[in-house]
């Protein structure tokens, strides 16, 4: 028994004298052994997560002579790379906004299904699995989904051309540029919102709606004064999560835009693959460092909002 819990059972008399020092030594030894048991995991994470991150940060903040310097960061902020950051932020903002609104509506439509037994409903199970695939598994494959839909030979492109005489590409090859990225990013942002927002909707108690109705409140009153304020932090938090998700997303954009780099993640690819150009590695470090800063800020805000959300939704 006593091997498991540090505090001895209440009332058990402390052994006096030398026995006591021995037991203290034993306790110390045991604690040391317990901590040693946790070492492999933390060492592993240190090597494969903290070390690479450290390399990025130190690579971004040291100059050619190996001392602290902001020259790499300055090289990024004063060039085409800054525009890429701007485009990444814009893309993430707009797709997070569209994704958050459409995803919240979709979650509501799923969760308010008549006769559904909450988390167990079949529609919900299917939609959740489907959303998971698109949000977390899709990546490269989503790019091909859109090439098959609105690519030059895509199904929708052909239908619009043959039936309505519309040319989707009249304004140029938009699919491989920012408009295309917005369209494709929404395809994983909406499902992601559905996954993260459904639990928040579950937190709304039926009694609140009933209380609102019995007091004569309309549906508008309910959403404006009850559900809205309760869901607001969860919605804002989800929006931030979507922003971070789009900002750090790489696979879909890489598969769609095979050359060049309108956004930051693609510019990092360029920096990594064109090592022939001197100083590209430093640019890669600086770009990656910039991403860490942006995502860390967004995720910290997210964590703050999560704490607020947890107050109501249990």
């Amino acid at each position: 028994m006593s091997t498991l819990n540090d505090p001895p059972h209440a009332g058990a008399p402390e052994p006096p004298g030398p026995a006591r020092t021995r037991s203290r030594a034993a306790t110390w030894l045991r604690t040391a052994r317990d901590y040693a048991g946790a070492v492999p995991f933390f060492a592993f994470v240190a090597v494969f997560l903290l070390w690479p991150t450290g390399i990025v940060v130190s690579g971004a903040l040291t100059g050619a002579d190996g001392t602290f310097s902001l020259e790499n960061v300055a090289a990024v902020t004063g060039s085409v790379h800054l525009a890429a950051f701007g485009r990444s932020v814009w893309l993430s903002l707009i797709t997070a906004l569209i994704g958050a609104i459409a995803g919240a509506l979709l979650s509501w439509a799923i969760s308010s299904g008549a006769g559904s037994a909450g988390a167990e409903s079949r529609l919900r199970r299917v939609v959740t699995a489907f959303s998971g695939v698109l949000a977390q598994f899709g990546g490269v494959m989503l790019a091909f989904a859109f090439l098959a839909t609105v690519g030059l030979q895509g199904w929708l492109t052909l239908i619009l051309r043959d039936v309505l005489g519309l040319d989707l590409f009249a304004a140029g090859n938009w699919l491989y540029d920012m408009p295309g990225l917005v369209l494709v990013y929404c395809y994983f942002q909406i499902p992601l919102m559905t996954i993260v927002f459904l639990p928040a909707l579950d937190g709304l108690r039926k009694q609140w709606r009933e209380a609102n109705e019995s007091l004569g409140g309309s549906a508008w009153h309910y959403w404006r004064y009850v559900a809205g304020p309760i869901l607001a932090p969860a919605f804002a938090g989800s929006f931030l999560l979507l922003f971070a998700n789009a900002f750090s997303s790489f696979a879909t954009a890489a598969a769609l835009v095979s050359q060049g780099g309108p956004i930051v993640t693609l510019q990092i690819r360029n920096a990594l693959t064109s090592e022939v150009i001197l100083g590209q590695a430093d640019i890669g470090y600086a770009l990656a460092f910039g991403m860490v800063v942006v995502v860390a800020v967004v995720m910290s805000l997210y964590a703050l909002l999560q704490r607020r959300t947890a107050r109501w939704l249990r």
Partner: protein
Amino acid sequence: MAALTPTPAPAQPDGAAPARRRRGGTALLRWTILLVIGAYLLFPLLAMLEFSTRGPDGRTAEAWLAIGEDRQLLTAIATSLQLAALTVVGMLVLLLPTMVLVQLRLPRLHRLLEFVCLLPLTIPAIVIVVGLGPIYAWVGYLIGDTPLTLSFVYIVLVLPYAYRALDAGLRAFDLKTLAEAAQSLGASWWSVMLRVVVPNMRAAILSAALISVALVLGEFTIASLLNYPTLQVQVNNIGKRDAALSVAVSLAALMFGFLLLLALSFAGRRRKGGE
């Protein structure tokens, strides 16, 4: 206050009609949303089916049959499956005993463990890749230059999801009491792990494993930038030479992922049922 007054008791009898109308309106709105967003989400998948079965005259299953004949692709699928298995095993061996240890003996480390496990959500995979060069040079030197070494960094990538699944499982039973009972009967630490923890967490372990498999099979960023030919990297490469084949593989992989995650939802339900 004004909003409260117009609902006196006499309004009760015909109060049912507006309620029904409202419910009808809600249903209409609900179905409109489901249809519009559903169409946006489903149409590309149908388009993939149409695109991949397009033949010179009518439909053909050529692209789908070609999946089984593409050597590189089959090799890549095998690589990805092995990676998934290695990642799951490595993740469980590293994470589960640590979580149990922390819960039983080192509660002070709980916050730190949680923070570390959720950290990969904050550090984008592409950032890890940028810093991974020197580390993988060492890994290649020590273990050999094989795609399977990707499982090291994949274990880190799946941590947030695996941690959540396992944490839910650990909360679902009284680990402390059971472990104390087992140890007072003379069970060793490993015996507690294998005969108390694992049987009580079967569903949670399954959840963690399934989500990890899904993430590994879908991972592209790190594999492509470290130049290892996994499933996603090959799908991307095929896209440059054979559009129909790449679309067929993509659709097949998406459907496989869907089944995987559907299984996951059932694993989650069993966990709840067993509570």
